[in-house]
């Protein structure tokens, strides 16, 4: 018999307790308790406006929570600045294909290797031999990631000239440059063609197999089969959680997605 999810991934990496965010009087996220274990792929799904992206923005510090706690790798990171989230090992992509539009694909990656290795202003300005060695190391690493996600063939194209699917994959590649323990993917396959989706799923599995934990947001139910576990949000509240096939049969979930007459 297959092991249960908790047995396969026993260690908690990310946990939120009573996480709440108000926009004015509206609760975008309301008393959310959830956790992600090390090594898992967890999906957050829910209809539009359910608060999925807000959860990401709270975890990465783009937004400050109105209440509750976020604990990552044993450390309270509630309300930390976005660049510190990257520093402690949280990489992320954005729903819209945010990128450094006027950089080439390669430059996008090189610029994203900001944290590792460290460089100082003076060694960069003086172009010291040690600094040049770091540059070389970075371009090798960048090339490795581009090969992993299959963008090595377009490395000299301007990011803004890439097709939409490639731009989203570039977002994933860029997030990998921070060597994340946890990778947050915000609607990673939205707007992609069939082929691009199949390819991306392969990439995500490869990333997971290298030991990176993945938390992703989707509103497409079909995409859930990739996940070890699924959390369903509606109006900022968790309405269901479990294995993909369990959640798919859950009545509350069906109701949230299709309205009450479909729930039988």
């Amino acid at each position: 018999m297959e092991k249960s999810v908790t047995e396969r991934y026993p260690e908690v990496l990310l946990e939120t307790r009573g996480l709440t965010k108000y926009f004015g009087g509206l609760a975008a996220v309301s008393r959310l308790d959830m956790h992600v274990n090390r090594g898992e792929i967890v999906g957050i799904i829910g209809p539009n406006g359910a608060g999925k992206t807000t959860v990401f923005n709270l975890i990465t510090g783009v937004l400050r929570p109105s209440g509750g706690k976020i604990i990552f790798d044993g450390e309270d990171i509630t309300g930390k600045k976005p660049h510190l989230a990257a520093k402690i090992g949280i990489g992320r992509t954005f729903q819209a294909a945010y990128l450094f539009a006027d950089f080439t694909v390669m430059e996008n990656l090189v610029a994203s290797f900001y944290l590792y290795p460290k460089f100082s202003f003076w060694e960069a300005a003086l172009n010291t031999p040690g600094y040049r060695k770091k540059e070389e190391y970075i371009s090798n690493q960048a090339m490795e990631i581009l090969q992993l996600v299959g963008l090595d063939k377009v490395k000299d194209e301007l990011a803004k000239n890439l097709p939409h699917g490639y731009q989203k994959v570039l977002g994933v590649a860029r997030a990998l440059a921070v060597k994340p323990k946890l990778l947050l993917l915000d609607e990673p396959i939205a707007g992609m063609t069939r082929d691009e989706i199949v390819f991306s799923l392969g990439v995500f599995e490869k990333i997971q197999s290298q030991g990176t934990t993945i938390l992703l947001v989707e509103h497409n139910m079909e995409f859930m089969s990739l996940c070890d576990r699924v959390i369903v949000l509606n109006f900022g509240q968790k309405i269901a959680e479990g294995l993909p096939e369990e959640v798919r049969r859950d009545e509350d979930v069906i109701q949230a997605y299709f309205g009450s007459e479909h729930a039988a």
Partner: protein
Amino acid sequence: MKGIRNLTKPAGFAIFIILLFLIPLIIQKPYYIHIFIITMLYIIVVSSLRTIALSGQVSVAHAAFMGIGAYFSGVVSKELGFSPWLTIPLGGLAAMMVAILVGYPFTRVRAIYFSMVSLFGGIAIVALIRVAQKWTGAAGLAGIPPLDPINIPGLVNITFVGQKVPYYYFTLVLTIVCLLVLYRIEHSRVGMTWKAIAQSHFVASSVGINEAGFRVLALAVGCFFAGIAGASYAHYNLVLAPGTFSFLPSIFLVMYMLVGGRDKFAGPIIGTAILVLVLEFFRGLREYAPLILGAIMLLVVFLMPQGIAGLFDQIRAKYGEVRNRKVPGSVA
């Protein structure tokens, strides 16, 4: 073929710089030498303004930071008797310190809001210069010492008092050094990080870039060089008036940069050279200077949004074939 093309650019620069060194031999009228000196000082200032703009922020207080360098160096050398050779770098550091102090609150706002806040900051700095009239003389600071003579017995003996040509060479060397440093910084990872922030601060912070820190760094570097140029100006002009560093001159600096083209390193150099000359040409119509600059500015914005330095690219994009386009998969 490629080797030759790689050589033409440095060779062109070398010839250009040699020509600049020969100019005092060809042009002897002090007035023209004066214009060259002023143009070069402003090239440093506008290039440093562009350095700040690399991180996505257009400062409308840059003349004020030039003023901090000028007044600091002028007052310290006059009152305390320090050599201008020492107070010029100190003037740069003073401008840099102020930039760091005001920089952090400034980074809370972006884009046009940053420009607005910087505008008020610039006005405040000039007001402070006027208020400190015990040292700055309110309406004007006179009696600033000129550069000390360089005297190495038996080798060189250069005196600066009442001479234009030594100042010309001093400013030329200073400009070349400053531009080289700014160029190096822009083409290092620091410059790349600034450009990344300018393109998307969301993405930049998502990969761990400390946006506030790097924006303050850009301000610090930019204001340091503005301060250096301002201080050099003080010991050349020997008289300072707060109006030189007020709001309108700050706007002019932004215009020089935009007319030249902010995307290219050569932009500020071209823009400043052309516009300083234009302003000198219309010297008799001094009160109409903003009008003339404004008209030029409008023309540039409508006809060549990338500035004069970007004109070549613009024409090529419109009429020419796409040259040197990188083919996917090719080895760079």
